[in-house]
């Protein structure tokens, strides 16, 4: 139960960094933290207390391996969502470079050319 509270704290810190900050790079950092919190949430869902990693070591018996191993499904999903977050950050870095070239600053207040 405590683990979920910590993950929720990280998630809301990320959302705060994304919403309340006016600097584009700070927003990207906030998105990064949200991505970390959601990935951590997935892996924590698949944890079995005292479980071993889902990779068979030569000396181990298969029956006992299947009993004690951690749930491998969330780990397969986190592999995908880590790389999705990396590609969004890569795209946003290029976008922020481009916006810096046009506006001369990362600050969103001066960028408010679009109304509403």
């Amino acid at each position, binding site marked *: 139960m405590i683990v979920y509270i910590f993950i929720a704290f990280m998630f809301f810190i990320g959302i705060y960094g994304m919403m309340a900050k006016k600097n584009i790079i700070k927003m990207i950092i906030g998105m990064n933290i949200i991505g970390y919190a959601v990935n951590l949430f997935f892996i924590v869902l698949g944890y079995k207390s005292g479980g071993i*990693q889902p*990779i*068979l070591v*030569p000396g181990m018996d298969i029956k006992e391996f299947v009993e004690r191993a951690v749930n491998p499904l969330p780990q397969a999903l986190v*592999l995908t969502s880590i*790389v999705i977050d*990396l590609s969004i950050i*890569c795209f946003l*870095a*290029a976008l922020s*470079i*481009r916006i*810096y*070239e046009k506006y*001369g600053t990362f600050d969103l207040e001066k960028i408010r050319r679009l109304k509403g």
Partner: protein
Amino acid sequence: MNKGMSEIVKTISKIVVPFIIIFGISVIFYGHLTPGGGFPGGVIISASFVLLLLAYGREKVLSKLSLYKSDILHDIGAIMFLSVSLIGFAGGVFFLNIFNKGKLFSLWSGGNLLFSNIAIGLKVGTSLFLGITLLSMARIIHKENKIEFYEKEEDIK
């Protein structure tokens, strides 16, 4: 034009980078036996290229692996992985693993796991290197504050 970092960083990275690349390749090839696989191995290899990029500056690295070559490799990796899945059509279903499965701990054990690992490793490795070099090329010349690329034509080819 940055000429890379100090002499110490250059010599150390010259020693360390071959080991990183070998470690990345071993993570890719033994993906279905030891922890790792296509993604981690590919990302490790692109990290080693980026280390060279930071240590030696852009010209030396681009002379070895120019943007055009990494662009081609990056597409070939994607098509290879798609074709590994299309081979499954020969067995009747989209993603069928039609190769024989082999023994448990041998290298050829996972059917088409090995080929998918190699394809994904190639793709991730070259594409992240391509992305980071492009991002690092965008410099601002403060004269007229316009984005000035070093992307001269021969740089690309």
